């Protein structure tokens, strides 16, 4: 954000600078009262997915680490809050229902701290952060990077998925943990009033997460991250240790994923190993890619818009969604490498308007470029080049 230097702020200048925030706050205050509860719930869920997308933007868009395993941290956060809600809504001495099915008499030791709300509030983001930090340190220490990093994170995801799927006794395996019937501050978690509060909490946390990411990426730390992305060997030769930067940023992304998972779990009513399914974690990447990697707001927008589109399309034409999603992957990779927000910021709409002729193409040397004769000649040359190109075979493939 640019900082204006004039000290006397006129209302118009104030509006011009702050209108996005005013719009966001107004929307956050008004939406819960005009949207039906079902849609509000969806919006709240998708906003919470925006937080995990912010984390992915941080590690992929800024640092160049494509993690396909963010579902691990997302689900860990979800399991933490789900267990707390289950334990909190029980009478003293009781156990969550599913333990009885598998003959477990006492609460397993590692679940016991989760009856405390304060521990849970911390655990939601600290446990995923610790797991991410450990995994990241082990991987980055060996300078495993690029696609190997992606494949390893995916393998780790599969490890967690199989583990959580297979452990019926300790975490209810495939069925996961339900939260919608649990009570929270004396209200049902699934109730409408609760939903409104959760929506506001989500909005606040998204803004907080955005601010954190903004702060991390603007300073020297952010410069180091971009250096890791663009030329890691050079950064190392300059005397920095990329491992530390990468581990830290991966840990932060893990923590964000945990918070996101907790918010999503509370609003969707359950957590299950499906949160760690391989496709879901790759979907997270596509939200960021479509919104625009390296643009923080793009990650949130991408998560909300794609998921909203998904729910709308899946209601109407369920069969087409996979085609559309696959098409989005292809589109983003081949035509929109910086996503929608990146395209917008680089003057994409202006270029399209210029193509349609409604505004003149920008001129580097107006005296020369706008001369009608020169323009006519240029068009003739371009036409000839295009004819040659379509006559000959495809343009030669890019070099490796």
């Amino acid at each position: 954000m640019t900082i204006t230097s004039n000290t006397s702020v006129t209302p118009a200048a104030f509006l011009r600078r702050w209108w996005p925030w005013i719009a966001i706050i107004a929307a956050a205050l008004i939406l819960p009262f005009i949207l039906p509860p079902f849609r509000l719930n969806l919006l709240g869920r998708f906003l919470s997915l925006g937080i995990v997308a912010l984390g992915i933007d941080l590690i992929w868009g800024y640092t160049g680490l494509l993690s396909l395993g963010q579902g691990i941290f997302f689900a860990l956060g979800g399991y933490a809050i789900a267990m707390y809600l289950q334990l909190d809504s029980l009478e003293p001495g009781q156990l969550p229902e599913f333990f009885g099915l598998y003959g477990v008499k006492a609460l397993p030791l590692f679940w016991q701290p989760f009856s405390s709300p304060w521990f849970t509030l911390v655990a939601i983001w600290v446990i995923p952060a610790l797991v991410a930090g450990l995994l990241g340190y082990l991987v980055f220490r060996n300078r495993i990077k690029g696609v190997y990093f992606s494949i390893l994170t995916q393998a780790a995801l599969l490890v967690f998925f199989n583990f959580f799927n297979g452990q019926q006794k300790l975490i209810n395996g495939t069925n996961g943990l339900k939260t919608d019937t649990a009570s929270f501050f004396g209200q049902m978690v699934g109730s409408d009033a609760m939903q409104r509060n959760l929506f506001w909490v989500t909005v606040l946390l998204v803004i907080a997460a955005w601010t954190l990411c903004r702060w991390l990426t603007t300073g020297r730390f952010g410069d180091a991250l971009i250096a890791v992305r663009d030329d890691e060997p050079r950064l190392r030769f300059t005397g920095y240790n990329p491992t530390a930067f990468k581990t830290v940023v991966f840990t932060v992304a893990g923590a964000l994923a945990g918070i996101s998972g907790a918010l999503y779990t509370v609003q969707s009513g359950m957590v299950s190993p499906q949160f760690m399914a391989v496709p879901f974690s790759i979907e997270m990447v596509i939200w960021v890619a479509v919104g625009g990697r390296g643009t923080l707001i793009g990650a949130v927008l991408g998560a909300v818009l794609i998921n909203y589109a998904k729910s709308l399309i899946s209601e109407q034409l369920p069969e087409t969604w996979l085609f559309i999603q696959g098409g989005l992957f292809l589109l983003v990779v081949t035509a929109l490498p910086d996503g929608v927000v990146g395209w917008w910021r680089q003057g994409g709409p202006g270029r399209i308007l210029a193509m349609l002729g409604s505004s003149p193409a920008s001129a580097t040397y107006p005296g020369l470029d706008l001369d009608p004769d020169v323009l006519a000649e240029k068009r003739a040359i371009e036409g000839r080049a295009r004819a040659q190109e379509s006559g000959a075979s495809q343009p030669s493939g890019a070099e490796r």
Partner: protein
Amino acid sequence: MNVLLDTLFNGLAIGSVLMLAALGLAVVFGLMGVINMAHGELMMLGAYTTFVVQNLLKNGPLEGLFPAYILLSIPLAFLVSGLAGLLLEKTVIRRLYGRPLETLLATWGVSLILQQFVRSVSSAFFIGLIAAVALGLLAPRLLPAAWWRQRWSPLLGVGSWVGAGAIGIGLAAALGNDRSLDQPWFSARNIDVTAPEWLRGSIDVAGVTMPTARLFIIALTLVSLLAVHWFLQKSVWGIRIRAVTQNRPMSSCLGIPTEKVDALTFLVGSGLAGVAGVAVTLLGSVGPNLGGNYIVDCFMVVVLGGVGKLLGTVVAAMGIGVLSYILGSGSLLLLWPQMPAGLNETITFFATTSMAKVLVFILIVVFLQFRPAGLFPQKGRMVEA
């Protein structure tokens, strides 16, 4: 002794399926550096080809060939998957060489499209698709040439594809009113391939029961491996492929058509996926989600083996196969009954197929801590900084 042999055989059987599946991936990833997430879906295409061949031969004039349908479907599956891979290379992958993360995302998109394609393809859908693709490809010819020299020509390019897509969808919808054309070919259900008579029994050797289907898969794996080895080491195109892998600009200077080499490598890798698909049909019913069950395992095989080494792929696949069978079936407990109690509990904890996978993957990640480049790392000066 019996238990040991039995374990070894079953482990080898699992490993050989894994190896057959990973072989094509090793070719594509090892030689081209392309991450093909659609590899599993190409396997699925091979499996569906087997299904189609079986149904064509089951009742009809060619019934005499039915016992051999599985042999017939191997080259056909190679061709179908290979051509699908070739199309993928020509349209998408070639724009993305040198950007492996982008190929990962693009091929994942392709895999989603292929999955849904198999679920919802019907005759109407297929005709509409062909029409859309044909119109999109022919648009530059059909529209006036002058239109392609305007300022808005890039928009016309996009627009022509959107228009072709709309026409295709419209055509499919119109044809879909006819009940017989609207019938999905496969639907979302799993399909079953019944093994021919001669693959159904089992052979007893030294007290070990070996199902013939498993033996067939092991043999198929061996043949494929030898064929790939011969192709890469002895054939002219194999030598060209290796040359391009080692030094692309130099090969190009010496007159090797690098683009053709890329296309051929991708075709061979994808075709091998199809062959693996044939093998998988013998193990049980298969469905549109087949690919997801194999893709991560295949990548683990390639990474563990070391990129660009076929020997590494073989050792890694067999190792993973034997290890997961030993752990998953709990046969370690049978082999060593007097195990200490603590170890015994640990082994029992991991003695299911999915938990064995957990342990094997953890072991692989630990192993990569010590040997980050896999079992057989690439030697030479081409190592990245």
